[in-house]
């Protein structure tokens, strides 16, 4: 793996407003690194959907002096990792649903099926929006999506996207 060429890490206030501020800020930062505007927009979409998910479903209680939410973006010449972390209630049924969805999305070639199923579910029931953003991430970007709950009760959801584009010299 290449040594990292950039790393952005930010503690985040859990207000909805911060999602769009961060998306546009990242878009501008990444445009200085990658030549493809389309690729930067995709990374912006990934970060926004991950942050929206964290703010919607994460707990707001800071743990042991840590900020409630954290965004990490790490880039190398061949991949970009975007990770969003937040405290979670380990007993939450939402956590089981998250891991089940990620397992579904991890099956090769399944992203389109899963995303279309999510869209159809929303069409039938407007309240059934859970997981739509994560499915969109994998469908639109082709990235891999994983999650882990650390011993401190912090959930980290990470997207890894192959860059496949030239980096600015």
């Amino acid at each position, binding site marked *: 793996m290449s040594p990292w060429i950039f790393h952005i890490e930010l503690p985040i206030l859990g207000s*909805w407003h911060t*999602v*769009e501020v961060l*998306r546009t800020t990242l878009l501008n930062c990444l445009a200085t690194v990658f030549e493809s505007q*389309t690729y930067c*927009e*995709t990374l*912006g*979409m990934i970060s*926004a*959907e991950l942050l*929206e998910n964290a703010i*919607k479903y994460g707990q707001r209680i800071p743990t042991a002096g840590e900020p409630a939410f954290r965004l990490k973006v790490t880039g190398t010449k061949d991949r970009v990792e975007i990770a969003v972390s937040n405290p979670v209630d380990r007993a939450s049924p939402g956590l089981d649903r998250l891991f089940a969805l990620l397992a579904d999305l991890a099956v090769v070639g399944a992203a*389109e099926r899963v*995303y*279309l199923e999510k*869209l*159809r579910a*929303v*069409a039938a029931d*407007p309240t059934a*929006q859970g997981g*739509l*953003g994560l499915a*969109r991430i994998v*469908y*639109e970007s082709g990235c891999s999506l994983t999650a882990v709950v650390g011993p401190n009760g912090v959930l980290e959801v990470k997207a890894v996207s192959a860059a496949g584009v030239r980096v600015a010299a």
Partner: protein
Amino acid sequence: MQNLVTEELNIDVDMGNPGLVRLLMTGKSTNREPGKLLIPFFAEALELAATMHAGIEVHFEELSHFNSSTIAAVIQVINTAQSRSMALALHYDPAQKWQVLSFEALQRAIRPFQALASTRVRFVETPTK
């Protein structure tokens, strides 16, 4: 019918063409619950079009970004239009990859419902340049 004007999203209502209600979206849609704003707005537009025996065009080409909650609202608008047998056309910019991905997925998602509907929702590539 009034235009929708918010801090980040505008929808202009254009009734300059007989038999057609055009909704022109500009800005971006990142609200936490965009459906609360969009669904009543589109419901009013559908009602207006039904009264005028007009079709509806929704233009997304000038939109720079929308979140997945907005996609959820759009598919509900599609559903409503189909259930009312209304002619709805969604225009998007083929030069913007995110729009192509979003609207092609929507098109595929509603295909099973389209087969049963008396009118079809149209997805129209509309280059802006």
